[in-house]
């Protein structure tokens, strides 16, 4: 079987079969898992870290570490929660490392916004959200990302971040309130400058 044929075989397989095949040493099956989860993991990392090079790094490490530790994963559990837990812990570590080895953040800029569907106002709003998220502390940013980007339930978020469900709800609520505050401030400044 050619490589293309092999990957197309994996393409139609369900997650559990892919994980079993990966455990058996079939790296191509793991490749299919990566392609199914890469956007979710990268989004999580971007949301948590607010730094694209680090997010790319951690997404890559997540898939490598998850593969190396796949024998510790229990098939009856939800795979997404398991791999999100790994990614979120690696992000936490990177943030801690960044506290000691800070880098200058790049100014927020939008790329590729030439679609007519995206209006200038939307662009501005999204830029404000990006800035606002970067100013938000990790404890609010992390659950907000998992909730609104990864579409996870409070229960799953609580599992991933090792916090009680009530705390997660509070953090999301407060995080959004702070985000609104930040955006409000930015609007006042823009208005004054404009």
């Amino acid at each position: 079987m050619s490589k293309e044929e092999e990957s197309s075989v994996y393409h139609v397989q369900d997650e559990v079969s892919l994980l079993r095949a990966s455990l058996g040493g079939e790296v191509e099956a793991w490749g299919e898992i990566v392609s199914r989860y890469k956007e979710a993991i990268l989004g999580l990392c971007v949301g948590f870290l607010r730094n694209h090079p680090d997010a790319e790094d951690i997404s890559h490490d997540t898939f490598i570490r998850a593969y190396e530790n796949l024998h510790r994963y229990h098939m009856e559990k939800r795979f997404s929660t398991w791999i999100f837990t790994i990614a979120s812990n690696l992000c936490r570590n990177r943030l801690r490392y960044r506290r000691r080895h800070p880098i200058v953040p790049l100014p927020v800029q939008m790329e590729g916004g030439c679609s007519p569907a995206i209006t200038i106002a939307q662009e501005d709003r999204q830029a404000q959200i990006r800035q606002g998220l970067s100013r938000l502390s990790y404890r609010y940013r992390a659950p907000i990302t998992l909730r609104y980007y990864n579409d996870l339930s409070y229960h799953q978020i609580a599992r991933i971040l090792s916090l009680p469900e009530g705390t997660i709800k509070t953090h999301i609520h407060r995080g959004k309130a702070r985000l609104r505050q930040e955006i409000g401030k930015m609007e006042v400044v823009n208005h004054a400058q404009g």
Partner: protein
Amino acid sequence: MHKDDLEKLLRDTLQREVSEERHYLDGLDKKIVAELTGRLPRRGWFHTLTRLFVQMQRSHRRQLAVIGITAVIFLFLGIFVSERLPLFRGLFSAYDEQHTTTITANSDGGQLLFVMPAPGAQTVAVVGSFNNWKPILLTDEDEDGIWLTNLSLTPGRYEYAFVVDGRWWGQDPLADEYVRSFGGYNSVRYVGHTGDNI
């Protein structure tokens, strides 16, 4: 801003940020596969051994044989390493000494005897992590200069010191170990479950 607007905006913004990384995402699965394929040979003997264990579930005899052979190999390796290499020899003997100390520690289940020879002292107390470092007085009823008290402690590892007329003594001969703390010493005793460390 309306509640739903913010949530939608959050979702759209993060999705957009991810879509800006398309160049990175496109090649990620292939990159991971290539990296893992390149690594595979390094798994070597462990991977083979794991595979053998998985396969042996089919044959009971083969299972026994593999376990036996592996045990013998490890036994010989262990003897070889511990006998030949001075570094490891030191390691095992240090470990054994500490093991002995624990077994002979003067503790009876949760009861721990604290003894401090201090002839002529006015007050002798023991302070430690078992009581938020508040002094517990020792007594010398027969006035032979040996002060003692018996404390009932829950299982755990406790750091402590004696305070003799206001002066700290951190090195109790009955301790399991000593640690440095705030420029001085603390003694350490391990209290096991009843009967574990008599």
